[in-house]
């Protein structure tokens, strides 16, 4: 069927008559818009009707702000929509609640509108965190500040809870990062970007400087608000703070590849990263920077336990200076000024995609040197004693252990490296897991990877993949292909849990567990896992992609 014919046929399908429904929709839509009144600006009306004096005062303040401040002048194009948003000092317009927010404590400390008209509110709140029910010994009372987009249905915004007691002074400048404008996250080819953050008590002005693809710098209009005096007390803040918001037009951001250089879609869990020429150039420059500077970083093992900030800065000094010299600079720079106009802090938005450190510039330390001490693995609260299921060494000599632990989340099976940082695994109600042999015809599967190809560059120079095997499997062969497509056997270690040891680890049935190490040079190619019986018979074969 041709597309044209299909279109014709679809258009010909008799749709049910829906005249009544249409008229009802018309009436409801009219009622909806009429309920907002008849003034020229629907946003202004609701507020003025409820708070006439407040509206007048807000209008005066707004005019002053608009006339006196650069962001105000810049924002005047959408000034009509600044009035009527959840009022400063009042509750947020959407009765916002979070998991840890104390009910009724959230108030708006600043508000405004993006260039596309979507409205934002900076909200301060009191909060409490209690993770004891989740087995984590954390419970405190605190405060938080978050940027909300009341009319945008999105996961954007979020928030945090910071412990009030013993809280250090807030840093002069905290960037909450750059985001795709929530109202344009989907369906907009070149979305505007929003830049936001908070400032400490000494900051009286913020500059956000944008460096375009050709290196030209220009100031972006910034909506900076200081929260002090009565508003600060109302917002339960122990000291003055500030908030700032700036916007980068979508066409500029697209031209200069800002979203991909900062990996905004991928950071939000959607979309794929597509680097352009600027991003690729920065990545190459960063790779070179890592090669030149990584060896200057201090060994974590040489640092004292819980080092102070100044101790860390001293230790990192040589590496920091080297990185400053060789690494690419981000497109956004923030400067915080005190009341005398002096710069008290400046920072660059990190280039996420360029700063992904190449694994081959990280020293693998999983193989112990003479005098090295075995690390102690912190015990999961509420867990029983650990039982080591399998231990061995990667091809470069890094020591690993797979251990089992019964926790409140079920049986956890994890790998860790006694002489290096890194590790992880999975937990579940059953051992072996219900999907150890896959979902499709598991009875025909004899050995199968469980999870993905893993990379622990701080521990070993190899990647690894692990999985389960049936009790009758005597050997697991793992074949990967090198960059030229030639097949190679990976070193594999296989351990069996037999019926006699089942009780010790609370497994439901006997099983085998295997791990294979694959060099990083293998690339993104298919890996073949073949199971063999004791007599050499080939039992079955599985494929997986070598994508870390």
């Amino acid at each position, binding site marked *: 069927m041709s597309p044209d014919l299909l*279109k014709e046929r679809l258009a010909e*399908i008799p749709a049910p008559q*829906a005249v009544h429904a249409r008229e009802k929709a*018309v009436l409801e*839509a009219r009622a909806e818009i*009429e309920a907002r009144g008849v003034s020229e600006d629907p946003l202004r009306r609701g507020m003025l009707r409820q708070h006439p004096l407040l509206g007048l005062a807000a209008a005066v303040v707004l005019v002053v702000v608009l006339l006196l401040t650069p962001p105000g002048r810049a924002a005047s194009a959408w000034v009509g929509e600044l009035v009527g948003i959840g009022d400063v000092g009042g509750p947020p317009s959407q009765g916002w609640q979070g998991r840890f927010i104390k009910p009724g404590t959230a108030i708006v400390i600043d508000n405004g509108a993006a260039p*596309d008209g979507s409205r934002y509110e900076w909200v301060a709140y009191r909060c409490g965190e209690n993770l004891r029910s989740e087995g984590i010994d954390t419970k405190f009372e605190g405060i938080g500040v978050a940027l909300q987009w009341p009319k945008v249905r999105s996961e954007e915004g979020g928030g945090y809870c910071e412990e009030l007691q013993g809280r250090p002074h807030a840093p002069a400048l905290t960037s909450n990062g750059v985001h795709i404008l929530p109202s344009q996250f989907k*369906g907009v*080819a070149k979305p505007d970007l929003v830049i936001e953050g908070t400032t400490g008590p000494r900051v009286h002005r913020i500059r956000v400087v944008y460096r375009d693809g050709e290196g030209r710098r220009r100031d972006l209009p910034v909506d900076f608000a200081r929260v002090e005096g009565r508003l600060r007390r109302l917002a339960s803040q122990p000291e003055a703070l500030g908030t700032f918001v700036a916007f980068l037009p979508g066409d500029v951001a697209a031209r200069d590849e800002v979203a991909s250089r900062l990996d905004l879609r991928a950071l939000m869990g959607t979309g*794929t990263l597509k680097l352009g020429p600027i991003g690729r150039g920065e990545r190459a420059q960063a790779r070179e920077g890592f090669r030149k500077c990584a060896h200057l970083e201090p060994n974590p093992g040489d640092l004292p336990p819980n080092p102070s900030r100044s101790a860390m800065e001293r230790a990192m000094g040589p590496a920091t200076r080297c990185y400053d010299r060789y690494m690419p600079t981000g497109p956004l720079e923030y400067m915080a000024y005190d009341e005398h106009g002096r710069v008290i802090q400046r920072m660059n938005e990190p280039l996420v995609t360029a700063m992904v450190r190449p694994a081959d510039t990280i020293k693998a330390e999983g193989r112990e040197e003479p005098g090295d001490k075995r690390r102690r693995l912190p015990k999961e609260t509420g867990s029983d004693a650990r039982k080591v299921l399998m231990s061995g060494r990667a091809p470069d000599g890094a020591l690993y252990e797979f251990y089992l632990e019964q926790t409140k989340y079920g049986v956890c099976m994890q790998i860790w490296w006694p002489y290096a940082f890194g590790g992880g695994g999975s937990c579940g109600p059953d051992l072996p897991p219900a999907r150890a042999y896959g979902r499709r015809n598991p009875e025909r599967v004899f050995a199968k990877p469980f999870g993905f190809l893993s990379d622990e560059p701080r521990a070993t120079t190899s990647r690894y993949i692990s999985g389960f095997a049936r009790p009758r499997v005597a050997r697991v062969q793992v074949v990967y292909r090198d960059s030229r497509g030639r097949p190679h056997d990976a070193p594999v270690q296989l351990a069996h849990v037999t019926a006699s040891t089942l009780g010790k680890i609370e497994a439901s049935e006997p099983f085998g567990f295997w791990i294979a190490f694959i060099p990083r040079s293998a690339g993104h190619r298919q890996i073949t896992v073949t199971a063999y019986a004791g007599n050499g018979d080939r039992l079955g074969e599985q494929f997986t992609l070598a994508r870390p």
Partner: protein
Amino acid sequence: MRPWYRVPARDEASLIRQARRGSADAVEALVRRHWDAAHRAAFLIVHDAGAAEDIAQEAMLAAVRSIDCFDRRRPFKPWLHRIVVNRSLDWLRARARRPEVSVEVTGPVAGARVEAEAPDVLSDELMRALAQLDPDERALVVMRHLLGYRSPELGRMLDMPAATVRTRLARAITRLRELLEAEARKGT
């Protein structure tokens, strides 16, 4: 080069501007202008006359309520259609969780007042074949072949690469063709 969104008619931009200012007449004009396509799209996706009415009504109201958030530089129709399609898919997912309701459409929709006087065999076949597609596939077919969006537009609307849209569409059309052939065999 074809723009991603169709350029809206000048009078539509004017209607939206007036609607934002609170004009009920402008809102009525927008609802009437877009009702048929929205309702037909909802019906072809959910295959339930009552639900299609509700979905189209809700989508219209949602659009009116959010008209302040709507970017005036962009056309209204794709925005509305996305609301319709998303709500239709939500409705199908919710219905899938209620096993007592049959998903299969085997004949004229219950309770529907069908405008066509004579039964249209071809349309019935197509309707039954459509009903057997996955909801997401059905939505893609409707958006592409009824509403007329091209793959890059659909990709942007659904946040997936255009190539993925093309692949899924091709798969859906192949399946639709097979289902239609099966329907035709049944008929003979």
